[in-house]
């Protein structure tokens, strides 16, 4: 879902002002967040390099997903911690906003690309993987530098401007991937529960995915509004 640029990883969200989080963080919390953000920056850098190397060596994107999937799953799943950061209060972002954004990433990784193997070599997968990688490296390094009180102008500029290209491209990649997965979901009936059963409920993953795709529309509209608004404070600088 709409997950590219924002959420409460180290800190910050579309709604949050940069200085908010620095106000009264203890030394331990600061140290942990610094470690977390540095580790995540490193992780996504490793992913970026692995993806570049694969493509340079093999000349094709086929098999690229398989080669990096373990690293991707590890670092993207680890991001669940960001929800905890918000819940505990060391990051001043709404738990709900962060939860939605991390969930949409988890959903793409585990419930689409991991579970529906036939679409792993689609170009759209590479599309969103590249977007996610650039986004996350920018985001986590932004948080790291902010925490260390030394924010290079380029990183700040990147954080607020990359999304203009990255966000629509990322959304396109994700939507195209889900769309490509639909026939396989329909054929296998995966993750679905039919009637009759003793719980008197049913679930059709195929139609669920279609609803997910449709719900990108309101999400994209509302998130774009937030991201664009965040641009304002920078005009003076």
């Amino acid at each position, binding site marked *: 879902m709409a997950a590219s640029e924002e959420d409460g990883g180290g800190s910050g969200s579309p709604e949050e002002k940069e200085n908010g989080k620095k106000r009264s963080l203890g030394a331990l919390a600061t140290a942990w967040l610094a470690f977390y953000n540095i580790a995540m920056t490193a992780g996504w850098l490793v992913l970026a390099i692995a993806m570049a190397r694969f493509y340079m060596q093999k000349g094709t994107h086929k098999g690229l997903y398989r080669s990096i999937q373990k690293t991707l799953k590890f670092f993207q799943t680890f991001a669940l911690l960001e929800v905890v950061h918000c819940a505990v209060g060391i990051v001043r972002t709404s738990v709900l906003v962060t939860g939605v954004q991390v969930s949409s990433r988890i959903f793409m990784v585990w419930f689409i690309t991991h579970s529906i193997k036939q679409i792993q070599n689609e170009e759209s997968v590479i599309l969103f993987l590249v977007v996610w990688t650039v986004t996350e490296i920018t985001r986590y390094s932004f948080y790291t530098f902010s925490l260390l009180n030394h924010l290079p102008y380029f990183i700040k500029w990147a954080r607020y401007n990359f999304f203009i290209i990255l966000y629509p491209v990322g959304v396109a990649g994700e939507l195209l991937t889900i769309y490509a997965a639909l026939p396989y979901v329909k054929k296998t009936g995966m993750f679905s529960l039919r*009637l*009759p059963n*003793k*719980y*008197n*409920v*049913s679930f059709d993953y195929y139609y669920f995915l279609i609803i997910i795709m449709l719900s990108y529309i309101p999400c994209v509209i509302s998130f774009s509004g937030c991201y664009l608004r965040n641009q304002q404070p920078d005009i003076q600088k």
Partner: protein
Amino acid sequence: MKHYEVEILDAKTREKLCFLDKVEPNATIAEIKTLFTKSHPQWYPARQSLRLDPKGKSLKDEDVLQNLPVGTTATLYFRDLGAQISWVTVFLTEYAGPLLIYLLFYFRVPFIYGPKYDFTSSRHSVVHLACICHSFHYVKRLLETLFVHRFSHGTMPLRNIFKNCTYYWGFAAWMAYYINHPLYTPPAYGEDQVKLALIIFLFCQLGNFSIHIALRNLRPAGSKTRKIPYPTKNPFTWLFLLVSCPNYTYEVGSWIGFTIMTQCLPVALFSLVGFVQMTIWAKGKHRSYLKEFRDYPALRSPIVPFLL
């Protein structure tokens, strides 16, 4: 008797919106709101929030001008609460929906289950019983809205009706779809399960109704007074000994009964979501009681005896 002057400023822009002179010292905020509406008809009293401080709490309609910490020229700040809708309207709409929607599924109206099932009837007796219980529940709610409840607030923001109706109507359709489905599976433990469920359901419906009556009797017609509710001669109200909001306790109980009766997961989820929401409300109400009354009984929990 010295008259007051009241100026009303916009809380955000500080723009002078209205100047009232020769206001009686014993004028209430409600009366001032009525005067304000004369100059700004689009802001009817229900959508006005007047306060002494732009960021402060809203003044109550019953507050009297001369009792407020103001000089003879009072400055009040106005905030628009947005379009308002009466509580009664919201309740009637949100309850009428489930009543009708469930029946559409029960009678298997066309375009829901497939042509060969149109207007057919389920062969399971529990399905008929469930329809009676569900319909009874919402008829009860509608009648209580019209004849029993005494509302503290007249209105709520208009957007609430969309939110609330989506919730009630959506869940009603979701539940009704499965319970009345041709492939519905009746409860695993058969008649015994249904009998037990019905007893729980009826007991809790009676309990819930008893509490609503008790709360109504606490408050005379037209007043907004708040008093501590106590158990009455009706045994169902004895739950007040243990709980601040037994109406919510009984409501959750009714839905648990309905879940057991229908053995339907969507009903269980609806009960769970309702329980979470009612717990939030009960905790809030419990906190207000504790704040307002020094002698509030210590044994009481918000919604679940001893636990929550």
